[in-house]
């Protein structure tokens, strides 16, 4: 891993001289495709708002971790986000209440509880980096963890891609084809939780969902089938990830947010392409 990072130092650019930039670049190249792949399913299954709620639940998770005196709040974070995600699924299933209302309520709850827990004693500023994230602080050790996440979650997503896609098209149809809808949805929520929580400290709660949703949303404007959809989403995520990181270096801005803005630019570009194509037809 460190050998790969070091070899980047030979690149003839000013930024390549800094280790934090090389680490950040490698992290972006690693996780962008995973975010894009997961995003295609999240958007197809109309769960964009759902994954946002998972991100917001992390704030409460961190709060609980701090309350319990854990050195690293990661376990509390994963635990609470998973609980909330499955809770939303269960409430939706049992009551058939409107999904966006249930999600919105859970978001309000977890943000409020998180802020209350973390602001005890007036120390909230210590945790504000979780809101915005700091890509440049990522260490080779953390990149190792990211690698493991990419392999496990990425592999799992590919293994279950067809089944998750079919459930997103229509649940009854999926059930009639013998799929266990509930357990597949729980596994999907688990994978969203893993990706969101593992990347939280360098992307930040406020924008992590944009990284998930934007490449897929842009790719939908270009693609005619699922293979193209995933291909465009991965390409857009990679280009805006690397591009955004470099722009943030030269413009001296927060890298996560800059990446989101570049991806947003791609989204508008694809809208224009789509409109032009429709005019031609």
């Amino acid at each position, binding site marked *: 891993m460190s050998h790969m990072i070091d070899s980047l130092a030979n690149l003839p650019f000013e930024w390549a001289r800094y280790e934090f930039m090389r680490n950040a670049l490698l992290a972006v190249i690693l996780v962008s495709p995973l975010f894009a792949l997961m995003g295609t399913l999240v958007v197809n299954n109309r769960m964009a708002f759902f994954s946002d709620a998972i991100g917001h639940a992390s704030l409460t998770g961190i709060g609980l971790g701090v309350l319990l005196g854990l050195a690293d709040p990661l376990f509390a974070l994963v635990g609470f986000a998973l609980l909330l995600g499955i809770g939303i699924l269960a409430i939706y299933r049992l009551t058939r209440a409107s999904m966006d209302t249930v999600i919105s309520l859970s978001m309000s709850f977890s943000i409020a509880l998180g802020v209350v827990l973390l602001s005890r004693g007036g120390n909230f500023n210590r945790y504000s980096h979780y809101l915005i994230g700091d890509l440049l602080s990522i260490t080779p050790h953390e990149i190792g963890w990211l690698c493991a996440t990419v392999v496990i979650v990425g592999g799992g997503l590919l293994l279950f891609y067809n089944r998750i896609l079919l459930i997103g098209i229509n649940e009854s149809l999926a059930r*009639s084809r013998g799929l266990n809808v509930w357990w597949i949805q729980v596994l999907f929520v688990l994978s969203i939780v893993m990706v969101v929580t593992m990347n939280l400290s360098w992307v930040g709660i406020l924008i992590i969902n944009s990284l998930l949703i934007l490449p897929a949303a842009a790719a939908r404007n270009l693609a*005619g089938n699922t293979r193209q959809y995933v291909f465009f989403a991965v390409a857009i995520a990679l280009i805006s990830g690397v591009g955004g990181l470099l722009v943030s270096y030269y413009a001296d801005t927060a890298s996560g947010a800059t990446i989101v803005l570049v991806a947003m630019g791609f989204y508008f570009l694809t809208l224009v392409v789509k409109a032009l194509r429709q005019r031609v037809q």
Partner: protein
Amino acid sequence: MSSDHHKGIAPHQCGQCCTHIDGISVTLDRHRIIEDVSLHLHCGELTTVVGPNGAGKSTLLRALLGEVSHTGAIHFHPVFGPGREDAPAIGYVPQGLDFDRSSPFSVCDLFAASTSRFPVALGSRGGIRQTARAALENVEAGELLDRGLGRLSGGELQRVLLALSLTPVPNLLLLDEPVSGIDLPGRELFYRTVSELRHRFDLSILMVSHDLAGIATVSDRIVFLDRRVVCVGSPREVLANLDFRHAFGLDLEDLKPA
């Protein structure tokens, strides 16, 4: 897809595969939706369930699919084909598939996602494309293979879903209002296709429909359901039933089956 679903037996001659629906009742929120429904479905036969709104027609299908809990039993007696006694292979064509029409999946993606584990994200392998094309050609829809699912007309979508429900060939095929919202030529094509497939694959078909004019000619049997089975019989018998005529406000000469 092979047409020798029942090897060595000519269509119409099997007549032994049978689905027994015994005393099914469904209660939702303390509300009795259907009560003591018993039916026998034979292979090679199309049975249509008709009834007023709220009669429990779709609930009956959902009970058969195992989506709602019910009392009573469903027994399946396979002679041939893939199903087991306790778990018939059920094909299902939902009523007006509710999906996001702006989603970029093609008809081929739908087939691949339903019939294969190889991730559609990486494309569809040749074998899957061939299976899908053959299945679509059975319903006169071979040219739709690479069309976007959101770009299909109502009739095209129903034919695609029919082709999918027959891959692999099931023991029991459930059709929930398959022609609602489809124009007349589309309906005729759908009925013609279903009718032909029924004989070709010796299928038991249970269809829910409102389209009285259409079902009179295509059905082998009609079940008039209004929370319980009011009457069962040939189209001629049920259309002559006074309760039935009253429920549908019928006095139409042109509904008499030919």
